[in-house]
């Protein structure tokens, strides 16, 4: 291995609050070799992002300080150099890419200017030259028409293109090290594959070293040379990728690898339920040629509105007790479908029949029945729970409105619900902000169960959670559907999760169902090329099963033209 470009030794960072310092990063040491991609893995709160911010001294608060240790880059200790020297290091030596390109790109500044800004400042060259250099970088990160797109604003691009722009900004000053903080977490799986391929391509061309922060071991397995696992501010173990994945030493790493959704969970897989075939009954939910169109543009006095077909011609039958996964990328219409089923979005044409009642024709009766017999679990558990109410109050409110439980029996029922979702009964007194994401999502599921529903619609309900928590919530859903004979419509962009949980899977693309079938069959033998592309783009935890984007970069793009930015009326 070549000499290291960055050497971190015993780095210790702590936060001073109420004059009792708390250690956030505890004696972390690692080396980064030239041209190497180091995967920094850990869950939220493990300190992996803070560690990288500390390397360039951009801690999120002035209360957080470096207590000990060294960060040596080209003979200089970055913890000791002056602020002016640090400005040269940031951008010039170490570039950063962030998780959310939408919030990190300046919305009121042209994309090209954001790239040129760093070039002009660091290399002290004129505007015209900087513009030329920026156009060149836009070409490198894959903008098809860089000269024209230089003058575009971030909101005019899709998430994938924004992340490409962000990478362009980071590359603008020709850094030796790139820190990528969850660069693909906010992106669709096929776009993720493209961005990862781009990062590796840049590494190969420029001889960069990359620190890739991620919670997804699949990404690490596919892209990195070495892995470092962090938990609670400590580096638990580090080493070459294959060694860590094949023979993890630390129990935490073992758990992390086992929680990865691409590990097929044979013992409790979805097939388990098929042992007692259910009698053929009427479908609980029947969707017949459903269309949902949105008007976009136009005004009060002028027509000229375009219609966007969010859902076009979807038909689906859901049997009682079935677990169905709806997968697709953002903009594929899966959330609109869920909203249309629940009557939250107006149906343009077609029928939704729930338990024999056509919701379109008998709107009042149908909606009343829907609201009493279905419930929804949302993506962001914090925003979906009222922050001013305790969990107990939230659950009691639902129970009181539904009126299915006698008033006096409500406190007892609240306790039962908490038991069901595996929360301690004392959580009835807690408010969402004092709970973790996983606990909040359990409370969200408890609220859905409070309705005593026949059907639960879960919209991306694990997307915001850490992998090990995801695995727990999936296990909970599996247990609940079995125990209570629930019908579950599980909407997700993560195919691996759907494969583990759902018996049947529906693949949506641009508002249409392109494939439907038993999960194991769809995943083993996808019929539609879009499904095949989606499956191929999942980063597998086995490093010998390469990512589609690596073998033939651009092949995904040739099948799937970039979708326009999603504009959904809320």
């Amino acid at each position, binding site marked *: 291995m070549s000499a290291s470009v960055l050497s971190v030794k015993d780095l210790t960072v702590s936060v001073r609050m109420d004059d009792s310092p708390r250690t956030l990063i505890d004696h972390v040491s690692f080396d980064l070799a030239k041209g190497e991609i180091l995967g920094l893995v850990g869950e939220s709160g493990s300190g992996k992002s803070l560690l990288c911010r500390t390397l*360039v001294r951009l801690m999120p608060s002035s209360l957080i300080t470096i207590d000990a240790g060294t960060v040596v880059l080209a003979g200089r200790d970055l913890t000791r150099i002056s602020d002016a020297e640090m*400005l040269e290091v940031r951008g010039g030596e170490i570039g950063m890419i962030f998780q959310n390109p939408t919030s990190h790109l*300046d919305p*009121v500044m042209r994309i090209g200017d954001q790239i040129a*800004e760093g070039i002009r400042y660091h290399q002290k060259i004129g505007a015209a030259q900087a513009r030329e250099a920026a156009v060149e970088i836009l070409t490198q990160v894959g903008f098809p028409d860089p000269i024209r797109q230089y003058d575009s604003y971030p*909101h005019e691009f899709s998430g994938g293109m924004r992340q490409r722009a962000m990478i362009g*900004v980071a590359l603008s000053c020709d850094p030796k090290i790139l820190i990528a903080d969850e660069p693909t977490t906010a992106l669709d799986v096929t776009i993720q594959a493209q961005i990862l391929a781009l990062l590796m391509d840049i590494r190969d061309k420029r001889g960069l070293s990359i620190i890739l922060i991620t919670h997804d071991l699949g990404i690490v397995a596919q892209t990195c040379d070495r892995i470092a696992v962090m938990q609670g501010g400590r580096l638990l173990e580090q080493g070459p990728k294959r060694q860590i994945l094949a023979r993890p030493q630390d129990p935490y790493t073992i758990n992390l690898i086992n929680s990865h959704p691409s590990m097929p969970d044979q013992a409790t897989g979805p097939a388990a339920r098929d042992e007692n075939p259910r009698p053929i009954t009427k479908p609980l939910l029947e969707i017949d040629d459903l269309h949902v169109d949105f008007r976009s543009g136009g*005004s009060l006095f002028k027509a000229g509105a375009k219609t966007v077909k969010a859902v076009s011609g979807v038909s689906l039958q859901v049997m009682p007790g079935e677990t169905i996964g709806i997968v697709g990328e953002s903009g594929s219409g899966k959330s609109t479908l869920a909203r249309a089923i629940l009557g939250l979005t107006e149906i343009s044409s077609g029928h939704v029949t729930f338990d024999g009642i056509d919701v379109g024709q008998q709107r009042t009766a149908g909606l009343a029945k829907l609201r009493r017999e279905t419930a929804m679990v949302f993506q962001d558990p914090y925003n979906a729970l009222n922050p001013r109410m305790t969990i107990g109050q939230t659950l009691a409110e639902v129970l009181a409105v539904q009126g299915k439980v006698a008033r006096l029996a409500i406190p007892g029922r609240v306790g039962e619900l908490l038991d069901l979702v595996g929360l301690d009964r004392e959580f009835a007194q807690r408010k969402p902000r004092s709970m973790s994401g996983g606990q909040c999502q359990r409370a969200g599921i408890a609220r859905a169960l409070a309705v005593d529903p026949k059907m639960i619609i879960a919209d991306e309900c694990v997307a915001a959670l850490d992998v090990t928590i995801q695995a727990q919530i999936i296990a909970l859903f599996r247990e609940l559907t079995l125990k209570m004979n629930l019908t579950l419509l599980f909407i997700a962009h993560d195919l691996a999760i759907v494969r583990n949980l759902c018996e049947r899977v529906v693949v949506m693309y641009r508002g249409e169902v392109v494939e439907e079938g038993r999960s194991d069959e769809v995943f083993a033998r996808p019929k539609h090329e879009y499904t095949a592309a989606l499956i191929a783009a999942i980063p597998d935890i086995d490093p010998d099963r390469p990512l589609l984007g690596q073998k033939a970069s651009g092949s995904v793009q040739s099948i799937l033209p970039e979708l326009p930015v999603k504009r959904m009326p809320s």
Partner: protein
Amino acid sequence: MHRYKFVLTRPVQFLPVLFGISVITFILVRLIPGDPARNILGTRATPTALANIRAQYGLDQPIWLQYFYFLKNLANGEMGKSILYKIDVLPLISTRIEPTLTLVLASVVLSIVIALPMSAIAARNVGRAPDHAVRIVSTFGIGLPPFWLGLMLIILFSVQLGVLPVSGYGSSLGDKLAHLVLPSLTVALSLSTVLTRSLRSAMVEALKSDVATAARARGMPEGIVFWRHVVPNSLVPTINLLAVNIGWLIGGTVVVESVFALPGMGQLLVRAIFSRDYMVVQGVAMTFACATVLVNFIADIVTVAVDPRVKL
């Protein structure tokens, strides 16, 4: 440039707005107790003389007919004749519009000139002494009534120091500007406090934003981060606040014009109300309404220019 298409289409929407305003002001003015004819002729006028005056100004007609004539005049570019000044309303307003317009413009510019550095100093020193100082000054400024502040400024600059005129309005440009310094400063000091608070909180947010972090991460010094990224991103909410306040200001110049004896629209309006000069009140109210609509229109254009995401 399709984002600016609304500049051409939007004015169509002004017509119903202005029509509504004209109906409301027309009716409200006539609901004020009092009789314009008796105001002109005094208490000892004969019934015949009163009837003559009423007939002369069309006040003996039913109210809907009066409104019809008002609209008909308006279509011809006339607003009727002032009962008090005995001349047409439109030329009357146009002689009075200049002091008010310059006062409002000068106040707005001055308040931005005060607010921008104040909020920048506060935002870049959050929680430290300069921030507290700015907060104390602006809280103080919100609490001061403009008529009192105006008088204090007169005492300080005109009476004690003798550098600026006490009141009135000049004839030459320099003279006019000298007469406008104190009134516009009075208005600007009140207005800038509101702007400072809004700008400061937007800047504090933007300094913590991901945009600022990303700019720092590419090695931009704090000055560039602030002026090139934080400030442009903080302007949008303040533009709308400013527009609302200018609308309020146009009507609110009445007080300041009285304190400084400026011969502007505010003064004209006060006198017209006291003498039940219906035509003038209507005319001034319509002018104020048009100005407010126009200011909001300009604010929309500026918002679109500042924030490329906005589509109207």
